[in-house]
């Protein structure tokens, strides 16, 4: 037995109008200073107030939100006593909103202990609305929460199926002004979600179709959204693709590009999407010999050579590299500007973190310690995988 979890998804142009139909007393918006500056908080606040709700805002979420920020937000929530939580922003804001919500409902829970095995009995005090303002993390529909333990320089992959939002509002209005670099990074995040949802060992009939469609949408529309941010057709399809990819991976899991990317991102402070996306072609090449990744299915769906797994994998890694070239994405760790000496000094720590990352175990091919080190070195040097 397994599950398929999804929020009620409201998508497309003007989807945010649904906020005017929300029934409740108080809404607590979890966001960051950029969302305030861009006027998105006012846009959401206005619509919630027109629905008769009193609104409070916590706008202190930082990129890679810390455990401490989650605790502070939960305290503010307890003081305001909302019956709706609204996460507004990129993945950091949405993840922080989920963690704060759990601690608001369950003051006895610490953020680093949130896990999928316990039952929290959420929704006694409030429900959750998520509004993504980037097209990548899929956090608006997932049960994952990524927080950073600043003391240990470690990203914590937390979450519970209970914290899947009640309503996800996927409105391209919020991404029309997204900078090109952010468009590329988050788009690669979505592509990695979709690929890994399809190839990880927990893939299933319900997630497969979503993953394939998301991959196709991203290859088609990401270059257009990157080149011309005003191309609203591309923006809307990318926004949908990110949510679809999020649904796919939230209901299956991830794989090796996430393990490697989490490790690199935590130690060198690389944005999540750029880090995991960088490793995608390398992990496709590495996983091909396992024969378990089903790359031929993906390649066939995209009209690429798919005679066998090996051929398909190399066609796909080349296609991913071509996309990365089109959107000016760094294709090696060196291209991220990390000096070789700094990389070498951290190699053991990179391997330690990747080895213990919870995404490793569901990869179609699981590296041993030596192979992890080689994967990092090849990715540093930009060399195709030959082992």
């Amino acid at each position, binding site marked *: *037995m*397994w*599950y398929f979890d999804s929020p009620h998804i409201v998508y497309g142009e003007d989807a945010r109008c649904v906020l005017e139909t929300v029934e409740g007393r108080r809404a607590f918006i979890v966001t960051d200073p950029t969302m305030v500056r861009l006027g998105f908080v006012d846009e959401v606040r206005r619509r919630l107030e027109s629905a008769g709700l009193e609104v409070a805002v916590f706008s202190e979420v930082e990129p890679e939100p810390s455990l401490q920020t989650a605790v502070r937000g939960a305290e503010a929530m307890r003081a305001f006593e909302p019956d709706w939580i609204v996460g507004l922003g990129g993945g950091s804001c949405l993840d922080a909103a989920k963690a704060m919500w759990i601690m608001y409902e369950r003051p006895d829970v610490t953020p*680093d*202990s949130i*896990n*999928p*095995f*316990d039952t929290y009995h959420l929704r006694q005090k409030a429900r959750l609305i998520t509004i993504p303002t980037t097209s990548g993390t899929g956090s608006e529909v997932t049960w994952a929460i990524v927080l950073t333990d600043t003391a240990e320089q470690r990203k914590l992959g937390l979450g519970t*199926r209970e914290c899947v939002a009640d309503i996800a509002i996927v409105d391209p209005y919020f991404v029309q002004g997204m900078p090109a670099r952010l468009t590329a990074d988050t788009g690669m995040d979505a592509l990695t979600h979709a690929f890994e949802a399809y190839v990880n060992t*927990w893939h299933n009939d319900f997630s497969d179709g979503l993953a394939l469609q998301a991959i196709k949408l991203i290859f088609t529309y990401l270059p257009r959204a990157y080149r011309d941010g005003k191309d609203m057709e591309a923006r809307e399809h990318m926004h949908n693709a990110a949510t679809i990819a999020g649904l796919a991976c939230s209901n299956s899991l991830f794989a090796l590009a996430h393990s490697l990317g989490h490790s690199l991102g935590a130690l060198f402070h690389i944005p999540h999407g750029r880090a995991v996306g960088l490793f995608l072609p390398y992990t496709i090449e590495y996983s091909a010999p396992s024969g378990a990744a089903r790359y031929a299915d993906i390649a066939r769906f995209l009209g690429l050579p798919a005679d066998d797994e090996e051929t398909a994998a190399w066609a796909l890694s080349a296609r991913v590299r071509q996309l990365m070239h089109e959107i000016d994405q760094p294709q090696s760790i060196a291209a991220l500007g990390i000096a070789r000496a700094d990389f070498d000094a951290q190699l053991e720590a990179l391997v330690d973190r990747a*080895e*213990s990352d*919870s995404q*490793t*175990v569901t990869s179609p091919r*699981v590296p*041993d*310690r030596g192979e992890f080190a080689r994967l990092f070195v090849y990715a540093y040097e930009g060399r195709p995988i030959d082992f």
Partner: protein
Amino acid sequence: MAHRFPSDAWIKALCAELNASEAYANAAKNWEGDFYFIVEAGGPLEKDVWLYMDLWHGKCREAFEVTDPASKSPEFVMSASYEDWKKVVLGELDPIKGLISRRLKLKGNMNKIMRAPQAAKELVACCTKVETEFPA
């Protein structure tokens, strides 16, 4: 020689498999913890069967069938029905999936378990290597 599941002989055979596994030793080298595995009454079992296992940095230090559950206070207690344990032992039920879907119930520090998913996978791989006889 096949060992009946669950039994003292079976858990000792699993302990031996773990100690012979390089993959488990590597995956669990930074992990320690001891368990009660409770196979709940039902099916061929008239009463609960308790198995104890002490895992220490990639090795199994001790394993036996428990006659007095009060004799140890292990860090983790994992329980499930006979049928679900059988699926785990046969490699048909991923234990992490089993925990998320509540088919396996765990008492103890969940996050400590989540930090060692590869060790859990290798432990199950060793389970599947134990020649096992399942009573009907």
